[in-house]
């Protein structure tokens, strides 16, 4: 896969102490532990309110695939993805 060869940049918008945010963060951290090409930036909304405004972040948690294009958004705690394969597919889709 071409996309999978590139570096992948993810941004996750969360709120401290929010259960869904904690779940998502853990899920993603586990997922990318063995994958050095994926960079994950976790931003707390309280501290990054201006950035959240620029990015029009309504839902918490929101995960944005910033790179490679096209930009993709995932809303929710990712519990909807039944397996890591499904999530992986979405993550690397073109």
């Amino acid at each position: 896969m071409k996309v999978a060869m590139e570096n992948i940049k993810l941004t996750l918008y969360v709120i401290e102490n929010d259960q869904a945010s904690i779940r998502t963060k853990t899920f993603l951290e586990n997922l990318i532990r063995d994958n050095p090409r994926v960079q994950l930036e976790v931003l707390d909304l309280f501290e990054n309110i201006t950035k959240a405004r620029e990015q029009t972040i309504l839902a918490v948690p929101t995960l944005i695939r910033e790179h490679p294009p096209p930009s993709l958004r995932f809303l929710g705690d990712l519990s909807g993805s039944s397996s890591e394969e499904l999530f992986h597919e979405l993550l690397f889709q073109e």
Partner: protein
Amino acid sequence: MNYYFKNNGKTLHGEELMAKRKKISYEPHKFETGLEGFEHISKGGLTKNRVTLIAGTTGSCKTILSVELLYRGATKFDRPGVFVAMEEDVDEIKGNVQRFGWDLDALIEQNKLDLLYMGPTLDRVEEMGSYSLDGLLLQIDAAIENIGAKLVVLDSMGSLFEQFQDKRVVRRELLRLCKHLKSKQITTILTSERKEEYGVITPMGIEEFVADNVIILRNALEAEQVRRTIQILKMRGESHSKGEFLFTLSDTGLSILPLSAMELKQSSSTARLSSGNPRMDEMTHGGFFKDSIILVSGPTGSGKSLQSMTFAAEGCRNQEKVLMLAYEESRAQLLRNAQSWGMDFRAWEEAGLLKIVCQYPESQGLEDHLLGIRREIERFHPNRLVIDSISAMERVSTVRNFREFVIGLTSFVKQEEVCSLLTCTTPRLSGGDSVTEAHISTITDIIVILRYVEINGMLRRGTAVIKMRGSQHEKAVYEFTIDGNGLHIGEPFQNVQNIILGIPSSTAPSEVQQLEKLLQGGS
């Protein structure tokens, strides 16, 4: 269940209960919005710290109304506000209201306004699992804190719901947001699209679970004219005017025209003004009252315009200001006709005594006409107003619209104490009345009729005062003629019946009259 009766699980009785109730009702309720006519229909303005839903079909001015509430609040009452745009982007909104002269950028710079875009992005969005809308809530919060906002507008609910698949989540989060804003003493306005003018208020049922107040804007097409109305459907715990009120978009924004809400409390004057015709003044026992509304009704060519011009000219001669609205003639025609009767309208106009406005009735809707006339009167402050003819307006509108127009106009001129003469064309040459008269005869104070009378194959003209509030008047039908010097009222018709009511017929002279003739002839 009545929750007043329970207080921390303890049941309240008697005086204690009354005190509790009183305390509840003593909260300050409404704040002024500064919107033309809104205070009138809402009996004081918007309720504080409540959620108001503005619902309407496409193009019914929901966004403009909500932006104007923010704009007026910020400029007139120094009340900062936040606009959360979910449908149009921020620049579009700024651009759309520029035609009203509202400089939103200046307000943003003065920290009186914040425009927050919370609409859909271009990104592809997937929903996976549970989420909250805390991002929206936090950003609104931050914007409020930043400028000390008191008013928040969310435009619109349709596009908020559109952004998410799980409607239950949006519903829950919206309720939480509104509760949060209430707890922060913020007044909230939500807008929502409707599919039809009457029926279901919002497809999402927002009015049921979150809104305390509901305002409905309508945008119906009637007789090829757009009829915009605003209705306050509910205002929880507060009184307000009921029913639909016309509004229009002028060059300064929204103007609500509260017609039927006007109260009949105008002061009344006993000072009289001359009609310009000495005989008419005699017939009315001293002229028209200064604040009265005179209806001159007659078929085409019977001298209505002449009478209205005479009335206007008399005002100018007495150094009074006169506003003339002509809906049937062009300006050049009017000036020429006046000239031929020896009235120099041009000179009076130059002297600032006269203002002539000529317009086609079809040029705009009746509410725009009404607003235009009101603005003209407020600017010019005339003592006399002439409308020639009011029945021309009738042909461009529905019966209901026309009635509202006349009521709105007459109540306004009464308030401003403008002596107003309206002419009205009757469809038939002799006798009969028109629809216009049927609608406005009860509102007018004086009715003067002009009629053709056919006697022995000759067409003659008759006039009579058939109604005059607060004064006696002559009851006879007088003959009048028109010549190069104007209108001359002569003697009452004798031996003719049914001049007003139908086909005139002559009767034999009475015995007294015959004896009088004999005696005159004999002396």
